[in-house]
């Protein structure tokens, strides 16, 4: 894993020790943030309205979907709840804006949402050209296909000549075009904007395959009239790291989003769960003491109080709890999203 260069600088900047390796204007800006003399429009706005406006999907089980009580649940939803717990003290102070793949970036750019937490693959174009910042990665996935068992398709190469349903504005749309060109295969795209309508078109037989990221397809398969008739192909034709997105006009907000995600993963690594975090308050472990805010005073450096990370774990849980609550029930393997020490690639910078 290549650690995100910006976080190193971001943290160092707060400690006024950045070597100036990244953007030149970052040093004075961050220093002024720390002194409270520079604008933090998103953070101020969130505090003023007393809730976080969070952009999510129109319904993808496991990541963001309303349950029977109308309560939003999912791995991406938990990111929003963690931010609300850290900033506002209450994980319930979140309002959700369901967005299609095509709407999501405009909603963020226009300030309709404070944070976009919506199975969004981080790419060069989205980061650099759209001007969106992706402070952290909260799930690793990639493009694959769901096909009917009766079609006898065993691998992607068997799909030559197939009709494939796609969603506009997704990385899948370009991943499929790239893969088929590279391997000299042909296909006919059917591009339908809404995930539900695209899925229905596939189930109705309009397409031989529907292309999306693997975990999303596993969730969609569960919704099929007869899930056993469909298979999600095991091979991934691209890498798709997901992360929450924010606008770059509020550096402090970006850091809060980043460390809210990191706090959940750090908590798992430290063995802190929502049920054990209270006992951790009396711990002698320096890592744990820093985490719960008993020493070092990291909270105020982030414009938050000392107990911000404690509240995230207490109210939302650590990363493993979030995965087990949202992803595991769908029958999706945690796979590469296990911690590095368990053979996965989840490896985040430490809280120190």
């Amino acid at each position, binding site marked *: 894993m290549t650690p995100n260069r910006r976080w190193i600088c971001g943290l160092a900047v707060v400690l006024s020790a950045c070597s100036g390796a990244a953007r030149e204007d970052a040093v004075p800006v961050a220093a002024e943030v720390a002194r409270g003399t520079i604008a933090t429009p998103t953070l101020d706005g969130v505090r003023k309205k007393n809730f976080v406006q969070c952009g999510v999907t129109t319904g993808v089980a496991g990541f963001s979907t309303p349950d029977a009580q109308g309560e939003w649940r999912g791995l991406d939803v938990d990111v929003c709840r963690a931010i609300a717990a850290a900033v506002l003290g209450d994980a319930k102070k979140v309002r959700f804006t369901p967005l299609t793949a095509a709407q999501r970036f405009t909603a963020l750019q226009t300030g309709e949402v404070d944070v976009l937490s919506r199975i969004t693959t981080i790419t060069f174009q989205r980061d650099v050209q759209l001007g969106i910042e992706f402070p952290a990665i909260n799930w690793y996935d990639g493009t694959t296909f769901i096909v009917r068992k009766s079609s006898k398709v065993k691998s992607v190469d068997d799909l030559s000549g197939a009709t494939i349903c796609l969603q*506009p504005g997704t990385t899948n749309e*370009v991943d499929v075009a790239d893969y088929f060109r590279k391997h000299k295969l042909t296909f006919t795209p059917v*591009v339908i904007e809404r995930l539900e309508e695209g899925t229905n078109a596939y189930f109705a037989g309009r397409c031989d395959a529907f292309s999306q990221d693997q975990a999303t397809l596993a969730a969609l398969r569960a919704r099929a009239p007869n899930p056993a008739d469909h298979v999600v192909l095991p091979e991934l034709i691209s890498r798709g790291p997901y992360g929450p997105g924010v606008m770059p006009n509020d550096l402090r907000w970006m850091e809060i989003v980043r460390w809210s995600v990191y706090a959940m993963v750090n908590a798992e690594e430290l063995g802190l769960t929502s049920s054990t975090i209270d006992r951790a308050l009396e711990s002698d472990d320096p890592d744990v003491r820093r985490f719960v805010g008993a020493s070092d005073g990291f909270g105020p450096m982030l414009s938050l109080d000392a107990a911000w990370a404690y509240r995230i774990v207490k109210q939302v849980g650590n990363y493993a709890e979030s995965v087990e609550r949202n992803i595991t029930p769908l029958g999706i393997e945690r796979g590469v999203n296990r911690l590095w020490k368990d053979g996965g690639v989840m490896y985040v910078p430490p809280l120190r």
Partner: protein
Amino acid sequence: MISTQATPSVSIRSGLPGIAPRPRAARVRAFVWQALAVAVVAAIVAAIAFQAATNLRARGIASGFDFLDRAAGFEIARGPIEFSSRDTYARALLVGLFNTLRVSLLGIVLATTLGVALGVARLSNVWVVAAIARGYVEVMRNTPLLLQLLFWYSLWQALPAPREALNPLPGVFLCFRGLFLPSPIWQTGYPWISMERPVLAGFGFQGGASVSPEFAALLVGLTMYTSALIGEIVRGGVLAVDKGQSEAAAALGLSRIRILRLVVLPQALRVIIPPTASQFLNLVKNSTLAVAIGYPDLISITNTTLNQTGQAIEAIALAMAVYLVVSVSLSLGMNVYNTAILRRGGHTT
């Protein structure tokens, strides 16, 4: 903002007779006011553009039309214009425009034909014919077009799979993947032309010509919806012709067909053409509902483009400009036709 609504400026009479030219001072005053109005509008547009550009820069969002020359990276369902993912965004948008024009123009021709038939049928003396036409018009007019499109699209999905495809004529196959027809192939030797029949292979049919379910559903939906509206316009136009005219023609011994062709329709056309022109424009604009069923029209391609490039303002502005050009051209065409009809037809009552 620029409005996408292009008002059809088809006039029934050109110029207002009997109004004397205004004095010079009044003309100057009118000119000054109009110039002022134009200046205010221009200033507002400029202010909006400046504000948008400043905000885009402040948020680090790329702007400009450079993206048009970049490789699109996505695929579009096969159509008359060749396209691959290595072609540019400009070409992708061109393919979208062509798809829009294809379905719109075909839709206009079919809707007009069906609409005229409906209008005449509603005036029929045969009760059953009039009642069926009326029922059709009411159903089409009173349900949302989007619902109708989804209905035709799902109806097509209910067709059999490629392997059990309906085969009404030799070489013609109908299944949920589309309609597959034999297509002519030109050859150098005798007999110069041969038919290539679609053959079941792999996931569906290969070879020959094909009509996709998306295109078919969109064409049927637009045609049926618009034909109902045109039918009503035709009926209104025919009723607007004084009854005495056809009675007089009948007294001269003309047949019913000739009365319609020589006396009623030439006069009715003046009433029919202007509102029909606006229905044509509506049909073109309604074709953007294609997005819902996955037909790659201009809006669908624009949608993908603005998502892949993130340049929403440019992409939407481009699409708006294109629809404006299409609508204004259509309007102009209908104006020319209308003027020709007026010149040819002499005077009405």
